[in-house]
């Protein structure tokens, strides 16, 4: 790999330190040897105020491939996360994370985190990733909102 990936990630780290949205956190994970793994981050995404998500801060794992920033990072919420566009494994469907669609090397960590926050309250029913949340969102809003609120409590700030 070229050192571009690490260089860029260290830049992201500095940028995040200087400026990140209120209520969010993001930090690289530690490797078993005590060093920092810049290619795997843990972040917390707060639900937007005034939405059914607001009570929680949702843990997000961000993995950067060696080819980053040419290739997008992989994002994951906890397995079983209740959301129409999140796979049972926690994997997220988002156009900006797809190389063939809207991913651009200039997209920053901050933009990604804000993107996920947006996605929480504005799911796309045309791109279902799990059956239960998708079905409830389409056909039983009350049930959907109850489950989301329950989940928010689970991840309460």
């Amino acid at each position: 790999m070229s050192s571009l990936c690490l260089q860029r990630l260290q830049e992201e780290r500095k940028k995040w330190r200087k400026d990140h949205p209120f209520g969010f956190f993001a930090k690289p994970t530690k490797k078993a040897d005590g060093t920092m793994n810049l290619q795997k981050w843990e972040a917390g995404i707060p639900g937007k105020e005034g939405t059914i998500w607001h009570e929680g801060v949702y843990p997000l794992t961000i993995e950067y491939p060696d080819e980053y920033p040419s290739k997008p990072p992989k994002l994951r919420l906890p397995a079983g996360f209740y959301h129409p566009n999140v796979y049972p494994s926690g994997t997220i469907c988002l156009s900006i994370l797809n190389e063939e669609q809207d991913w651009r090397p200039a997209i920053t960590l901050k933009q990604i985190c804000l993107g996920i926050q947006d996605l929480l309250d504005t799911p796309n029913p045309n791109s279902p990733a799990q059956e239960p949340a998708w079905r409830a969102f389409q056909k039983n809003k009350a049930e959907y909102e109850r489950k989301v609120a329950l989940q928010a409590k689970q991840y309460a700030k």
Partner: protein
Amino acid sequence: MSRASNISKIIGPQNLEKLRSTKCLLIGAGGIGSELLKDLILMEFGEIHIVDLDTIDLSNLNRQFLFRQRDIKQPKSTTAVKAVQGFNNSKLVPYEGNIMDTTQFPLHWFGSFDIIFNALDNLAARRYVNKMSQFLQVPLLESGTSGFDGYMQPIIPTETECFDCTKKETPKTFPVCTIRSTPSQPIHCIVWAKNFLFAQLFAADITNDADDETKDWGTTDEEEIKRIKQETNELQELQNIILSGDNSQIPKIIEKIFIHDIEKLLKIDNLWKTRTKPVPLTESQIKTDLTDRDMDLSTVWPIADQIQKLSSITNKLMTRMKAENNHIEFDKDDEDTLEFVATAANIRSQIFHIPMKSVFDIKQTAGNIIPAIATTNAIVAGLSALVSLRVLSLLNYAKISKPTELNMVFTAKASNISQNRYLTNPTLAPPNCNCPVCSRVVRGVMKIPRNLFGELKLKDLVSILAEKYSFDSEELSVLDTTGHRLLSDFDFDSLDEKTLEEIKIIPGTLLLITDETENDDGTCLKPLELYIDEIASDDGKMSDISLPDMKIPLTKITSTTEEDNKPVEDVVPQNNGETIVLDLEDEDDEKVKKRKFAGADGDDALSKKSKSDNEIEIIEEDDIIALD
């Protein structure tokens, strides 16, 4: 007349003597490497050191002309050297090993060569050798082929573009949604069968997550937990069947994957608004016949045969699991694993109304096989050997005043780019000023006495560097690019008291030191890449540590993230998300829609884009070049 009379007429007797004292490094003894070795010997190069880590395989013999059937499984480098003895006149030194192994091939070893010929088959090694050539300023002749396509590029450090100055194509990735829910091409099903199904059943770590009571499920809702557990459990169950060795349960696996899972997908009707619904197998199609039959691998079998073969091959793999430590990796040359992936992919294709493929064809996709032929390799190696004469200034009547007068070459006629030129030969470009490898860093070697690796602490290293190069030690980041690790920065100092040995900074480690303290004029110091080398001394002192004497140049802060505060438009959740990468094996991703210079004999070299860019520069009026 003597053996060397022809070359002597071409370059003159004096230059012939120079050539005879030239020491060159040839990296790779495969397709291009075999050809190059022959050419360099016949040209009377004095000393040729040849490195390869690979052994000979049957499928090499259609082009790697130094190898025979009897050489299969022998190391390439030593076998090649034995094979050329009949016509050899040079000093040949073979090495079996990985060129990126810093113990076997430390930086100073690379420095003992006058010129380096790359005949590699993977991007990582190409990038690594490129970096070594940049460290040492040794000319590098880079080359690669893929089928009819080939290229050759001389790299003269600091004077011409380096390997990383142009963007390289990396393996194609697929959105997880396409792979798991809505495949539309054979490759989607092959990726699913290989990276998802096979990996889960035979190569996954055995986890018992589902039974872990302390696990945070992200919800307290019992019903939810049950659902999630079930999802995880289902795969676990299949894995358990495989591990149990109970082959009477094989139909159950096939039912789950090709009936129940498809029925579940059908329930999400939004997926099928604009797509044709998949048609699951029926129970009557699933047989319990586990007889393994020999089949023609080059034809497409009917669905019943696919199902039968999948059953019998699962049975075979199940038996093998016990003997192989409950872990089998996919290997394109392991027929059982290949046939499992091929039949599973084909059954899925049938379900999703996608054409099925022969095992032979699926092997290419699943095994990332790049077509490779003798002729393209011979041409590319010949070009590389030939251009070395000019790089080494051995053609008196074709002297170059600057390295950018040298030519690089792409195949044109064979690559359907031109009918009027067999090759395109643009002159070399100067280094790309944004290249992260050759332009945006400075380089040097840090030599540390052997005994100090256990004494010198990371913070000492930081202060030595800060003092030597006037870095702001508070703002210094130390990255280990060999181990992909961050060792120290403004917000991370817990390793500062550790010795180099403790944090595994060893001879051969590459460190990237950055101090991006912004000056008032918007400049900062260029990042410094250091190669850690040892001084063979057991009582060295701190004062013996040597660093290159230089002033780190300033550079404009050119953020790679200029659109920083602009919100990303349309944060639309798509039926696309996680990407699955076809992993790189000995050969690279081939079945991508873009043609690329990649190959068994040089993979992944130049993206279509960079190639087209080159083409645009040299388009002539008469050339009909279709650029879409």
